[in-house]
């Protein structure tokens, strides 16, 4: 960030990196109770604390069943309605032989649903975020736990800086968010 930018707009946020998850969580807790503003935590691995239940599995299941139904329906339609042919004397509606494809298609659609769903929820393709401008964030995916605070006001900004220091943050830097 160059000097002009510095002077142009006052920094309204803080990014601080911690050495351990415990430290970061402690800091986070205090920040929240101090209610300094919106806080975000960035971690190099999935956080330990148990994730809240998600609707994603339900969606995947639904699409899986949908895919299965579609596949089975298509096969039945093709053999019974569209062009019934005498294949080795087998009945047109040979449902047992329709099952494998139905299963595979259901798995495929469930997988696609999961990827798209999870991708969307994880914010994939969100290539730019203001926090990227901070130096600290660049360690988040390596070995640091990074907390980013969007302070409500300059006073909150100051308070959060203190909290961070107490929780022995390694790096504390200001940022516009």
């Amino acid at each position: 960030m160059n000097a002009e930018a510095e002077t142009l707009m006052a920094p309204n946020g803080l990014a601080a990196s911690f050495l351990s998850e415990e430290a970061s969580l402690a800091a986070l807790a205090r920040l929240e109770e101090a209610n300094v503003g919106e806080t975000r935590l960035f971690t190099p691995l999935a956080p330990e604390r148990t994730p809240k239940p998600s609707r994603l599995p339900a969606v995947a299941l639904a699409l899986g069943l949908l895919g299965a139904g579609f596949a089975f329906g298509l096969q039945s339609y093709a053999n019974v309605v569209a062009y019934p042919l005498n294949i080795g004397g087998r009945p047109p509606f040979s449902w047992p032989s329709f099952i494998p494809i139905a299963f595979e298609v259901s798995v495929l659609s469930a997988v696609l649903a999961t990827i798209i769903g999870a991708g969307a929820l994880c914010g994939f393709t969100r290539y730019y975020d203001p926090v990227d401008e901070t130096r600290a964030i660049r360690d988040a995916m390596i070995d640091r736990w990074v907390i980013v605070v969007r302070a409500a006001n300059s006073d909150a900004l100051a308070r959060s800086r203190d909290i961070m220091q107490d929780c022995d943050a390694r790096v504390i830097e200001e940022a516009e968010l």
Partner: protein
Amino acid sequence: MGSVFRPAANLWASLALLLLSLTLVAFSLLVWFWPHGDAARGVNWAPAQPVPFSHQHHVSGLGIDCRYCHTAVEVSTNAGMPPTYTCMSCHSQIWTNAALLEPVRNSLKDDRPLAWRRITDVPDFVYFDHSIHIAKGVGCSSCHGDVADMALTYKAKSLTMQFCLDCHRDPGPRLQPKDKIYDTRWRRDATTPAPDVLLAQYGVPERNLTDCSICHR
């Protein structure tokens, strides 16, 4: 240092995703619908012929029956193309020195056959028999269109497998009364007997007309 990407990157990414999904949709629609269109099948295609023969003039104008030239249509797989001799049976009397007919006269003179461009064709692995269709009440126009109205003969139907099957699956409504088989202008109207009546009349066989072996050998 700063961020890897500019803020605009998010917009570009979304656009890229959008474009990708759109192309996918467009492609599938193309695969689905294009082959069914006339363009893909060269419908209305009317190539230049050695002689610009007009069915309109000969059939509508002079009222010559299809069978006068296409002699074999009732007895053979082929309808039969008229030998030069047939043309000359009239044109030795009339239009005897019309420039248009030069190729015909030469053909007879040098004993070289005329080479007409084929317009209505099915692949070699399809075995179509004219006689049985005529015998069972399928009129010329069903596949050749309103030839009597063609100044220059053009391809009137798609002749896809689907086209054949549409009729083989449900011949009734497409059958024509015996006396109208060669009338390419014929349309179903109030006076036309009901499909099942015609089916019975022609005794369209109970055999399964959608069997592959009906057309493919």
